[in-house]
């Protein structure tokens, strides 16, 4: 179902919608093209699915184009992706040439759609070389990095940088993710869609059905961690924290997520988690399919406390989702979790299972604090991490870039 901006009025607030309309009016009619590498699956496609209709609703002539490539092309771009995230990977000169050539073919195919656009947003590394084949481009070209390139494997970054540096600007999700580039580097944090299946309000029936499906105990406080079965998410550490709490307070734990199907490491981590759980009936390890959005939503809403005890993390949108559902979050003191969890305000940052156990016990013995922190977290997300803020920053960025503004104040 395609939503319009007015559908968000109740959750984001009337003033947020009014602001967007006012800003949209200033750039209405502009031709905006988003280009990425897939229409299905992955975070970028998820963002573009809501962003395109909402930009159109604001009067921007917005389209979404997808590049096409061979299997080998996607292997190469996957290698680039891994290299940008720090893995020591190798690409030959022939691989780089193929990466470039596939983009040249796509440039020929897409030329009539993007060459005269006022703003072209190129998402992630796959379509980055398109720019160099658009000699007659009219508008501003912006490279949007959705991934963490803070510590790239240098040969890969060096190879990619030559395609990036010609852009008019780039966008990073967090300041920690950026690399020095010879153009303005803007910061736009990710966001959640409060009306998506993952975040919308659920009926009592939907909640009860999930509660029953997983045989949860209505008399026990529920701790929930939603994440892939990945060592960086430290699911074993969460079980250790649960056991420390369990010694003194009855409690149950849900560890739910995907990532073990075709991923050998995921399978190994899942096996470690099952072993650590040791058949404890109050530990529920749930391997969910990637489209289990409503079930994840329900588990977060049923939780007494949400845990995200990562030892390495990107922005951590599962934290944002939990806070939006009014839950205090006990999160690892890493990455974007630090930007969302503030001790005694929206939850607690921890570095060890012992630290997590201590904070869980604190909250279970101070139930009023659970509600206070949950309320604070929800309002923090409403003000800062809903898609309305994300959209506002994109509109602001388009105004700044098209007007070539470098000054501190730009009146439009």
């Amino acid at each position: 179902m395609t939503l319009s901006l007015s559908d968000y009025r109740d959750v984001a607030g009337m003033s947020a919608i009014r602001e967007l309309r006012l800003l949209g009016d200033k750039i209405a009619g502009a031709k905006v093209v988003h280009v990425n590498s897939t229409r299905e699956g992955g975070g970028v496609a998820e963002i573009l699915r809501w962003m395109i209709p909402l930009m159109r609703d604001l009067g921007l002539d917005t389209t979404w184009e997808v590049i096409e490539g061979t299997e080998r092309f996607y292997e190469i771009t996957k290698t680039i992706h891994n290299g940008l995230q720090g893995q020591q990977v190798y690409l030959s000169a022939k691989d780089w040439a193929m990466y470039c050539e596939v983009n040249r073919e796509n440039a020929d195919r897409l030329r009539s759609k993007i060459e005269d656009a006022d703003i072209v947003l190129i998402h992630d590394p796959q379509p980055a070389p398109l720019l160099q084949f658009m000699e007659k481009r009219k508008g501003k070209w912006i490279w949007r990095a959705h991934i963490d390139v803070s510590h790239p494997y240098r040969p890969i970054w060096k190879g990619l940088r030559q395609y990036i540096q010609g852009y008019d600007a780039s966008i990073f999700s967090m300041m920690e993710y950026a690399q020095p580039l010879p153009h303005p580097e803007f910061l736009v944090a990710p966001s959640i869609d409060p009306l998506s299946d993952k975040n919308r309000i659920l009926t009592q029936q939907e909640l009860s059905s999930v509660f029953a499906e997983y045989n949860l105990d209505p008399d026990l406080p529920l701790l929930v961690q939603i994440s892939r079965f990945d060592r960086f998410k430290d699911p074993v550490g969460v079980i250790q924290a649960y056991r420390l709490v369990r010694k003194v307070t009855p409690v149950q734990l849900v560890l739910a997520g995907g990532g073990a199907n075709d991923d050998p490491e995921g399978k190994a981590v899942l096996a470690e988690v099952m072993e650590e759980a040791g058949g404890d009936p109050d530990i529920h390890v749930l391997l969910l399919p990637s489209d289990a959005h409503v079930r994840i939503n329900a588990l977060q809403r049923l939780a007494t406390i949400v845990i995200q005890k990562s030892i390495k993390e990107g922005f951590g949108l599962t934290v944002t989702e939990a806070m939006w559902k009014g839950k205090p979050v006990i999160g690892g003191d890493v990455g974007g979790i630090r930007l969302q969890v503030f001790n005694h305000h929206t939850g607690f940052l921890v570095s060890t299972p012992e630290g997590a156990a201590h904070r869980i016990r604190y909250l279970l013995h101070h139930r009023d604090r659970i509600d206070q922190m949950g309320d604070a977290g929800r309002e923090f997300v409403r003000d800062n991490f809903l898609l309305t803020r994300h959209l506002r920053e994109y509109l602001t960025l388009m105004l700044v870039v098209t007007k070539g503004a470098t000054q501190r104040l730009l009146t439009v």
Partner: protein
Amino acid sequence: MKPFAIKDCALLVRMSGLPPAYNLRDLRERIAVCADDVLYHHFCETPLRPTFDNPDYRNDFAVWTRKCLGDRMLAERLGIVDPYAFESTAQLRAATLDLIEERLAELTPWVPTVRPGREFFFLEATTVVFDTGEQIPHPLAMPHAIRKMTDGSVFFHFLESRRRHPVGVDDFSAWLRETGDEFHPYIEAIGAIDFYFLTLKQLRAEIHRVLIEIEVMR
């Protein structure tokens, strides 16, 4: 009387291009040379950035000093610095450097250093200002209008305005001054708000409260 035109604004943050600071000496060196807009951003624009309104410290330098360097003493000293109390950014910069240099001298030869991933990134921003099409026709309509204002409007008219002419004055007071003496109590009440330590929501509520109080007294 000319009506008050309500503006709104949105902030777009970007990397300043300065290298990050890994220790207190780096921080001192970067603050000494950074552009005025960088300093202004870290002291004044944080309420508009998607960040948590830290109730303990109102500027990024104090927050970083406390959370990343672990230096509570310097954080307290930096945290109380009110950037709006200085007549110029040069004075604000000098005062900030003075505090950091004093601390470096106290700690010599030790230089507090952060763990990797905890460095201070220097940012700046462009504020895009736009007309809302709404007006306040008369000072008596101010409480109602302010209660409905967005955070962006409150920021632009009450905080950002202090950097524009007339320097150090909020837009509401500047407008009220044009109306003569009748609304002088409004100017006094708004001027008495200790605003730097309030979030934008608290600030909006506080301006509304003091104006309502005067109306009740009238």
